[in-house]
């Protein structure tokens, strides 16, 4: 559960309304794979990830990034019950995908940096709200691990 004030929730929603969810997803996943190249271990079937340029233009990365962000978007509508919202995905990431939950925190941080490119409107307070949200999502995705 993420505790945001009414003001924080409005600010988070307002910025999200301006976000091109499809584009930001691919951008965030691409940046994760370049900035933390060991995360590529989960995407060996994605094709050419040999250079930063190849990663950012890779259609599988873009498609998967979109999928991940759509899921995140859904989470934003259920900030009061992230654990419930992400329960099934949590089981999937543990039992089938075998992803270390640290990767969720890394992706969350990269997403915040991508959102920061909006400029001055990404105030410290807005960053703070979004860091709480991404931390909450990461925790929810790790919740069913065993």
């Amino acid at each position: 559960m993420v505790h945001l004030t009414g003001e924080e929730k409005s600010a988070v929603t307002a910025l999200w309304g301006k976000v091109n969810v499809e584009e930001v997803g691919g951008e965030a996943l691409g940046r994760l794979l370049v900035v933390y190249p060991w995360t590529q271990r989960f995407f060996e079937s994605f094709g050419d990830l040999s250079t930063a340029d190849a990663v950012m233009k890779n259609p599988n990365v873009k498609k998967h990034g979109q999928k991940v962000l759509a899921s995140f978007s859904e989470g934003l509508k259920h900030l009061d019950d992230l654990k419930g919202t992400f329960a099934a995905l949590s089981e999937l990431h543990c039992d089938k995908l075998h992803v270390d939950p640290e990767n969720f925190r890394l992706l969350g941080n990269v997403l915040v940096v991508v959102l920061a490119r909006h400029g001055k409107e990404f105030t410290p307070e807005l960053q703070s709200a979004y860091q709480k949200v991404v931390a909450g999502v990461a925790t929810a995705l790790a919740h069913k691990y065993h």
Partner: protein
Amino acid sequence: MLSAQERAQVAQVWDLIAGHEAPFGAELLLRLFTVYPSTKTYFKHLGDRPDEVQLLSHGQRVLEAVGVAVRHMDNLRAALSPLADLHAHVLRVDPTNFPLLIQCFQVVLASHLQGEFTVEMQVVWDKFLTGLAVVLTEKYR
């Protein structure tokens, strides 16, 4: 640790910050304290709500040290030895705090450079700042 090309990229981004150490540093610290309030425990002397003057002054000091690191990328340990001593024996900032500062640094860069904040800049600065943090905490024990 950093290739010649990476060092050039670090320097290229630094050129955008040089001369603006105080406002950059102030924003960096403001974000750090706002997003990760526990980090304020290392700055008791600045009080619960550091004001602009304090943030600019301390921010400048932090960014000037980053500037020293940029100018001595091939010899970081020697160049930062006094700062490493300070962090090991006086400040003793828990090493887990450096990634928090680095995250805020990336956000400052991204919000100022916006569309121009390329993935290459992000990876190189993450690598550089992480290396810097290693040097600053190396003498801890």
